[in-house]
């Protein structure tokens, strides 16, 4: 069957089970767009900015576990994708990015809207391709999906010159890939698994540190079995949130820079750290040489290059968590760890990090907690980056995997709007709440128009403190309250903005308005912006300053008259 390059791309997407593409057209990618009407199975969502397309594909991928697809034209179209690609790379999210490129003969001539897309995206993709012959498209598409979604997932970009999209060639979609340089190890080495099981059986104060890998490998049940069988408390990283039910008696929450104090302290107390699907990020370790020094460490990850990168470990295991934890679970003995668990309970009661002080003021923590209660913890939460993100991580209780979606490693403000859009497209039956900062929201709020056009009913909770709050907090703590460039003096009226987008906008300034506003938003059949005007100079506690240790932790100060 002879097809054009554009038709081959669409056929390949259908073969890979893709049902939605986020994108924005332009000259170089036009042949692909003009082919789209032939493929009604491919739903195209026209975004307002290509960054929105990449983040939306990312939100879709995290909500579904399937690769998200975004495409854009050459030059600025491709460069606008970059923030979204880097975010997906840092957080191991499978994305397929397709970019138009100037015609082959024009490459290298600085043609209109020409940019070296594969060069720019080389260090922020798992792999990328510049396809110079239409006949290569089926193989490249097959490889791209395989690479993006297996092993440690990540973004794969395919750059397609305009005349390659127009060229015709024989189409036969390959069933297999031939990649001699890519074959992720999944099984885990038997002797390492035995060593790990022995350590777990011998340990009296073990703790599990679970990351994004649990969610990626669908090892939710295996993790739960491991924790319950040997009665091991579970701490989750920022991206590991929702990998273990937070209402479980063994759940200890998130450690690190803004984690709960008892989780950071438990890591320090433990004699065995079972790190699964995580990468010892500096937001958790602070000072790696002084991190969890009392424990032996088992590190299980599918990416060998993560092992030994930041922290020295005694038992490294390279493999897929679902398989490796399944094997470990058959080798470990039942245990109670009574003394250790009561020690953790003691830490919890001595360091209550999640108490919200009783005040008439509208506190952001209170808003998040009310949101959790009103949604019964059943919605999908998507956040941006900053204070609101940390409060959303702390004060909402997550019990199901893929209900917490956030830009972790790259810390991309503005993720909350298109990220939530993609998550809602991937999880149409769920209520998706975007917990947004007023700063990040304004970076990408153009996508509200996309959501209105495409009936994507995301509910926005803007935690509006009129500040770039996290940066302001750092200025307060580390720069003598010298608030340089962190205050937004003239934010737009977000409820009027809602009106301009033809959607519902609600402003909340008092505590008693919080719950009714949330319920009204969920009743409304479309996107809603709820503008929560919260206490301006509220800080996120606890805090372990960057590069420091658990001993340097600042816990919430006792309430004073001034802040009540």
């Amino acid at each position, binding site marked *: 069957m002879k097809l054009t390059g554009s038709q081959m791309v669409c056929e390949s997407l259908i073969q890979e089970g893709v049902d939605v593409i986020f994108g924005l057209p332009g000259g170089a990618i036009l042949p692909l767009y003009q082919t789209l009407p032939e493929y009604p199975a491919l739903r195209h969502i026209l975004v307002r900015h290509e960054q929105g397309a990449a983040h939306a594909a990312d939100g879709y991928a995290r909500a579904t576990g399937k690769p998200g697809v975004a495409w854009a034209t050459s030059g600025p179209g491709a460069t606008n994708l970059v923030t979204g690609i880097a975010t997906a790379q840092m957080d191991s999210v499978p994305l397929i990015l397709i970019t138009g490129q100037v015609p082959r003969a024009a490459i290298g001539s600085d043609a209109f809207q020409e940019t070296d897309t594969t060069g720019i995206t080389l260090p922020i993709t798992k792999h990328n391709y510049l396809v110079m012959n239409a006949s290569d498209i089926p193989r490249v598409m097959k490889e791209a999906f395989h690479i993006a979604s297996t092993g440690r997932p990540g973004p794969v970009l395919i750059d397609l010159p305009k005349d390659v999209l127009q060229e015709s060639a024989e189409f036969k979609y390959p069933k297999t890939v031939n990649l*001699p*340089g890519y074959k992720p*190890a999944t099984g885990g080495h038997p002797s390492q698994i035995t060593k790990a099981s022995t350590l777990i059986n011998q340990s009296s104060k073990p703790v599990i540190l679970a990351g994004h890998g649990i969610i990626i490998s669908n090892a939710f049940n295996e993790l739960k079995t491991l924790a319950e069988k040997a009665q091991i408390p579970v701490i989750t990283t920022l991206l590991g949130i929702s990998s273990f039910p937070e209402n479980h008696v063994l759940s200890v929450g998130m450690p690190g820079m803004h984690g709960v104090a008892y989780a950071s302290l438990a890591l320090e107390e433990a004699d065995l750290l079972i790190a699964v699907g995580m990468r010892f990020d500096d937001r958790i370790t602070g000072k790696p040489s002084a991190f969890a020094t009392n424990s032996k460490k088992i590190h299980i990850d599918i990416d060998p*290059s993560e*092992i030994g990168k930041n922290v020295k*470990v005694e038992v*490294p295991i390279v493999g897929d968590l679902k398989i490796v934890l399944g094997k470990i679970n058959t080798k470990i003995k039942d245990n109670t760890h009574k003394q250790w668990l009561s020690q953790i309970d003691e830490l919890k009661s001595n360091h209550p990090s999640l108490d919200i002080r009783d005040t008439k003021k509208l506190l952001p923590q209170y808003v998040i907690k009310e949101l959790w209660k009103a949604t019964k913890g059943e919605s999908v939460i998507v956040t941006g980056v900053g204070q609101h993100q940390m409060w959303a991580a702390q004060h909402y209780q997550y019990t199901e995997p893929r209900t917490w979606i956030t830009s972790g490693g790259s810390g991309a403000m503005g993720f909350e709007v298109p990220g939530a859009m993609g998550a809602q497209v991937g999880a149409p039956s769920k209520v998706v709440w975007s917990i947004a900062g007023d700063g990040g929201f304004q970076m990408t709020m153009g996508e509200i128009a996309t959501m209105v056009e495409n009936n994507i009913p995301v509910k926005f909770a803007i935690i509006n403190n009129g500040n770039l709050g996290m940066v302001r907090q750092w200025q307060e703590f580390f720069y003598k309250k010298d608030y340089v460039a962190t205050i937004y003096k003239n934010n737009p009226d977000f409820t009027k903005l809602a009106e301009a987008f033809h959607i519902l906008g609600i402003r909340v300034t008092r505590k008693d308005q919080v719950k009714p506003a949330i319920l009204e938003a969920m009743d409304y059949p479309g996107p809603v912006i709820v503008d929560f005007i919260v206490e301006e100079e509220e800080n996120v506690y606890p805090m372990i300053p960057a590069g420091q240790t658990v001993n340097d932790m600042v816990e919430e100060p006792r309430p004073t008259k001034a802040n009540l």
Partner: protein
Amino acid sequence: MNNLSQTSKHTISALVLDKPGVLNRISSMFRRRGFNISSLAVGQSENPNLSRMTFVVIGNNSVVEQVTKHLNKLIDVIKVLDLSSENVISRELALFRINSSPQTRSEIMNLSNIFRGNVVDVARNTMVIEITGDEGKIVSFEEMLRPFGIIEIMRTGTIALKRGMDIAINSQQPKERRNQSNWEEAASV
């Protein structure tokens, strides 16, 4: 990380797909991760679709381990081997252009013979000598030539192979072996 070992030069060999952009991917990875390359040599391998690269990297054992793992992580890299052990043949080629006069010419040729170098060009006031060997030999030869006045030096960078029948990197090797070696790397942390 606890680094028990000293910083030193390590030779790493990689078998990679011979296609456009591969060198860029590899050099970009070195740059981005802050690894130092002391020398790099690239050439075709026994398989026309594959190139063999030899890197000399400066760092301690944990740096070399990370270099190896990040090379392995690149899709276009088929196989990576740390050749830092002693049982390795390593060679580079160097060309020296030096000042010479009728009075010094024969002395230079004598030196060149001792080092098994070849005179490949003679002009009225200069000579070009080629020499192959490991890095130490080339550095000592350079020291011997210095008094005559060195005008230019051109060096290729080190290439290396393991000695003996234990063939280290074979392009025909089944993929499973690669996983196995990942294992050993992981287990050595």
